[in-house]
């Protein structure tokens, strides 16, 4: 089928298998490899993107279910001149990134959390990030990064 979406502000039309995961469409057909596929089963959050303004696990969305959707991936966060989004910048400055595999998903979840709740409490940050697993950082610096970004976006 031909799948039409808007990805990072650009209209796209791409030939896909209808049950193909949105993640595969993004990575393999559109070359947007920011979203990762650590588990492929909804468990880890490494594939988190925004679909119609909400975070989804792109590994669990059938291509046919994304028809007409607005999709935002990590590639769409930075300004056109390459200046990082304040959430990304906060992750860099807080030292929240180690191997980086989980980080694009973390950043998208943090971005979405702060959109919905610009001043989250510590408990709300933990709840907002609870679908994103990280095998390196121990999470504390991730929470610090979200806090830092919240302060700056306010």
């Amino acid at each position, binding site marked *: 089928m031909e799948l039409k979406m808007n990805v990072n502000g650009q209209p796209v039309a791409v030939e896909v298998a209808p*049950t*193909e995961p949105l993640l595969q469409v993004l990575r393999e057909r559109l070359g947007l490899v920011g979203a990762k596929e650590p588990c492929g089963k909804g468990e880890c959050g490494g594939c988190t993107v925004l679909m119609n303004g909400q975070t989804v696990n792109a590994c*669990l969305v*059938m291509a*046919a279910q994304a028809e007409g959707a607005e999709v935002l991936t990590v590639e769409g966060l930075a300004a056109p001149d390459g200046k990082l989004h304040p959430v990304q910048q906060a992750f860099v400055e807080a030292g929240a990134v180690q191997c980086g595999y989980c980080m694009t998903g973390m950043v998208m979840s943090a971005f979405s*959390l702060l959109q919905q709740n610009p001043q989250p409490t510590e408990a709300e940050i933990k709840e907002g990030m609870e*679908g994103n697993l990280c095998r390196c950082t121990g999470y504390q610096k991730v929470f610090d990064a979200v806090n830092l970004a919240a302060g700056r976006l306010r």
Partner: protein
Amino acid sequence: MLQADVPVYTPATLAEARQLLQEPGTRPVAGGTDAMVRFKDGVWRPTAWVNLLRLRGELAYIREDGDWLEVGALTTFSELLASRVVRERAPLLAKAVRTVGGPAIRNMGTIGGNIGTASPAGDSLPALYALDAEVLVNGVTTIGIAELMLGPGRLKLQAGDLITGVRFRAQAPDEVCTFEKLGLRAAHAISLASVAVRLAPGMARVALGAVAPTVIRVPDAEAALVAGHAAAAAAAAQEAARPISDVRASAEYRRAMAGNLLLRGLMRMLGPNLVSPIGGDPR
């Protein structure tokens, strides 16, 4: 790469969806959070998927109807959590839904899909049992939640039937309730055992999740709580459990936890001394 070329139909009306589901081998998909996992694992291999997302206009809603609340099948967990009506008039459901997955799972996962998967570990189900919920089928008939659930993955539905919603009486302002869930970690984990409890003067509801082939109500525990006997209620919950052993936990552990979660819930509702604000001494 996925096994290609299973068609996905996207009907625009309930009538059209039912028509498509008449074809043997087809299966509905709502949020896909169970469907995609099982499809990738090769456990569910339908001849075609019927994508329900375009029916959201018809089937994603939270409605108050006097003493009753009705929730459309395509309502997502995030929508339930964001609803003041649900938080205030069905706090038990709100507490249960809050424990489901993480935000991205709650954004896609629907209450209709939680019922449709018919897992004894489905976290909205103990709440729905404790609320004596009725499930709406095809927008016309209703069936009690316990009657609908036949076993793991098995529902009392005909081919082509769609769950269109679920309805239950709003909780009374003077009742207390809790949902206690035990997973392998605090968040984003499937239930090893869970319990939903409601208490009001002369009324108790206890439903256990993940400790039997379906969610179960425990009438003996309910009677014990009405009579004010917490320990007897916990013993009745353990007695009623019919758990399995699997990679996550042994049957013995699940059985013990069924009682302990009930006691933990009672303490959360009534305080550490289990002094009931609704009269009697539940010890």
